[in-house]
C-alpha cells in the first residue's frame, strides 16, 4: 500500500476493567495496528499527556521507533492540543478509538477533532480496505456482525471499533528502546471538567416488573400466567412443499434473507 500516506493514530492511557491498572487501550491499540498495516512503521502515534507515563511504551512495543507526546498536565483539555497539532501538521488519516477507557470516556474526541478540522468523520470502522487516488474504501462495523462499505475522500478522521483486527503483542524490549519525543505544548485547562464529581460506579438497580392489578383475580392471573401463552400457527398434515413455503414466506417477511 502507498507509504507516502501520513497516518496519525491517537492513543490514550487505558484501564483494565477489573484490576483498574493502566494499560494500552484496546481500541487505540487496534487503531495503531490498523495504521501500521497501512503505512508500516511510518505511522505517527500521538498522545497528549505526560511523556513520563510508562504505559505509553506498551504502544511503542508494537514495533514503533518513536512516539510523539504533547506534554500536558492531566487537568488540561487534550482535544484542544490535538486539534492544534493536527491543524499545523499535515495528516491524511487520523485514527482514534471509539471511547477512552479512563477519564470522562464520552467518546467525543473524534467528533470534536473532525468538527474543528472540518474533515469528514467515519465512525466505528472495522478495516480500511484500500486508499487510492485520494479516496479510501472503508468497512464499517454495524451491530450484529454486519459490515458496510463506505467511500470517503482524504483527509478524514475515523474511530476504530472493537471489530477491527486485534492489536499485535507488545514487546517489552523494543518498547523500552523506543524514543518518546516530548513536545511542550500550550495548555488549555478544562474548567467544566473540574466541576464534575467522580466516584466508583454504583450498581444500577434492576428494573422490576410492575404488576398494575387492582383486584385479586388480576394479581392471580399475572402471577400464574405462562409467559408464552398464545402459541403460533401450526401447520400439520400438509405436504412438505407447502410447509417449506410457509417457513420461506416468514423468512422473506422478516427480511433475514439477503
Amino acid at each position, binding site marked *: 500500500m502507498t507509504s507516502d500516506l501520513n497516518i496519525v493514530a491517537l492513543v490514550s492511557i487505558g*484501564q483494565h476493567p477489573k484490576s*483498574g491498572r493502566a494499560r494500552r487501550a484496546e481500541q487505540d491499540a487496534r487503531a495503531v495496528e490498523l495504521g501500521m498495516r497501512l503505512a508500516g512503521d511510518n505511522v505517527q502515534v500521538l498522545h497528549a499527556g505526560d511523556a513520563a507515563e510508562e504505559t505509553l511504551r506498551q504502544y511503542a512495543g508494537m514495533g514503533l521507533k518513536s512516539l510523539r507526546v504533547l506534554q500536558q498536565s492531566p487537568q488540561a483539555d487534550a482535544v484542544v492540543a490535538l486539534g492544534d497539532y493536527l491543524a499545523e501538521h499535515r495528516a491524511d488519516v487520523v485514527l482514534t478509538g471509539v*471511547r*477512552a*477507557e479512563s*477519564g*470522562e*470516556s*464520552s*467518546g*467525543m474526541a473524534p467528533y*470534536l477533532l473532525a*468538527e474543528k478540522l472540518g474533515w469528514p468523520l*467515519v*465512525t*466505528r470502522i472495522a478495516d480500511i480496505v484500500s486508499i487510492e487516488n485520494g479516496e479510501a*474504501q472503508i468497512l*464499517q462495523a454495524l*451491530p*450484529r*456482525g*454486519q*459490515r*458496510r*462499505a*463506505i*467511500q*470517503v475522500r482524504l483527509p478524514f478522521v475515523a474511530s476504530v471499533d472493537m471489530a477491527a483486527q486485534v492489536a499485535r503483542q507488545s514487546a517489552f524490549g523494543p518498547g523500552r528502546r523506543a524514543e518518546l519525543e516530548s513536545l511542550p505544548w500550550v495548555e488549555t485547562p478544562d474548567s467544566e471538567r473540574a*466541576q*464534575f*464529581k467522580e*466516584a*466508583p*460506579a454504583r450498581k444500577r438497580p434492576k*428494573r422490576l416488573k410492575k404488576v398494575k392489578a*387492582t*383486584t*385479586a*383475580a*388480576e394479581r*392471580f*392471573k399475572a402471577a400464574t400466567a405462562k409467559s*408464552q401463552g398464545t*402459541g*403460533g*400457527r401450526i*401447520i*400439520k398434515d400438509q405436504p*412438505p412443499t407447502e*410447509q*417449506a*413455503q*410457509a*417457513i*420461506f414466506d*416468514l*423468512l422473506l417477511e*422478516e427480511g*433475514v*434473507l439477503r
Partner: protein
Amino acid sequence: MSDLIRRDPRAEWIARNRLHPLHAAMTAPAGEVRGPSGLLRKNPHGVGFIGPNGIKRIDRSGGSNAAAGGRRGAAKSAQAVELPLHVVEAPDFYVVTVLDLVGGRLGSHDKDVLGQAHKLVNGLEGNGAVLAVVFGECKEEGFGLAGVDRLLHLEGSEYEGYSPEQRLAALVEVERRFTPRYWLFPDSINGGNELGCRLAARLGERPATQAWQVDTQQTLCRGAGGSSDITRATPRLLLLAEECAEPVDERRHEALAVELDSIAPSLVRIRDCGQVAVDPNAIPLAEAEFILSAGNGIRDWDQFHQAAELLGATEGASRVVVDDGFMPRPRQVGASGTWVTARVYLAVGISGAIQHMQGIGQCDKVVAINLDAGCDMVKRADLSVIGDSQAVLAHLIELAREYRHGAAENAA
C-alpha cells in the same frame, strides 16, 4: 322463540368463579338504566349474584358483576381500556428526542428515552411538548402510546442508509426552529450515539454520555469505560443509557405530525456503498440475526449445513448434538452454551429442553420443524411445522436456491 327467561347454569357457574378463564368475558357490566324522567336508576337487586348454596354474594372489588346467567351486555367487555389523552396545545418549550427506530419500530431503549423526556418536562415549569425526530422507513403505529406529543418524520432518499451528514443538517434545522430545552438521544450503537455526538460537536455542547439518572438539576453518568460515576449539572444534550427511566404507560399522547420548511442538502463527503455480505458463521452466535439450529432430530448433516449456507443463516445446535460430536461446543445454544438474541430462530428437530428455551428467550420469531406436535418448542414457536425435517429442509433448500438464482438473474 319463547319469552321465557331460561337460566344458564354454566354461565352462572362461570360468573361465580372469578378465576375461570371466561369469567371476564361472561360478566360484563350492565348498561345504565334511566327512568322516565331521565334519572339514573340503580337496581339494588341487580347487585351481586347468587352463590352456589343459594345465598346472595356481593363482590365489592368489582372483579365480578351481577347479571349472572343473563345474556345481556356480553359484547361490551371486549373494549380495550382507553387511556386518557394528554393534549399539549401551544407548547411553551420542546424536549426533542431523536429515536433509533431499529427495524422501523420503537425499541425498549427508545421508549425509555421518551419516558425520560416526560420526566424532564414534568420537572420544568410551563407545559412542554416532547418532539420525536425519526429518520427513514417507519412501521411504528404506537407513537402516541409511547409518549410522543409531536412527531417529525424525515423521509426520502437522502436519509436512506448511512447518511450522518444529511441527518445532522436536519437536526441543526430543528435546533434553529424549535430551540429545544433538552436534546435526548439513546446512547446506542444503532446510530443514536453517533448522531448525538455529531450534533454536540456542531452545537458546541458538552453532552452527558451513558447518563442513567437524570433530572433537571443533576445528571449521573458512567465514565471511564463504565467503571466510574460522574455527577454533573444536567447539560442541554444527553445521551441516555438503557433503562434510564420508566417508559410512559399511563396516558396517550397526540403524536401530531410537524413539518420542517426546508433543509438545505448537505455536502455528502461520506458515500454509502451498501452492506457487504459477511460469512454468517463468522458472526458471533450471541449477536447473529438469523440462526438455523439443529437438534437430535437431524439425521442428514450435510443437508443441514447446505441449508444454513443457502439461507445465509448462522448455525446453532442443541446440547445433545454437541455432546454427540456433530457440532462444535461454541455452537451450543442454551443455558450452558450461548444465550442468543436472534430476530429469527429456526429450530430443526429440537424439542425444547428448558435450558434451551432459556437460551432463546430473547429471540423475536421462533420457527420450529418437529415431528412431535406437543413438544415445548412448538408451544413457544410463532410458526411450527409438524413433519419430517429432512423433507422440509430439502424443499427449503430448493426454495432458497431458486430465490438466490432469481436475485442473481435480476442483478445481471
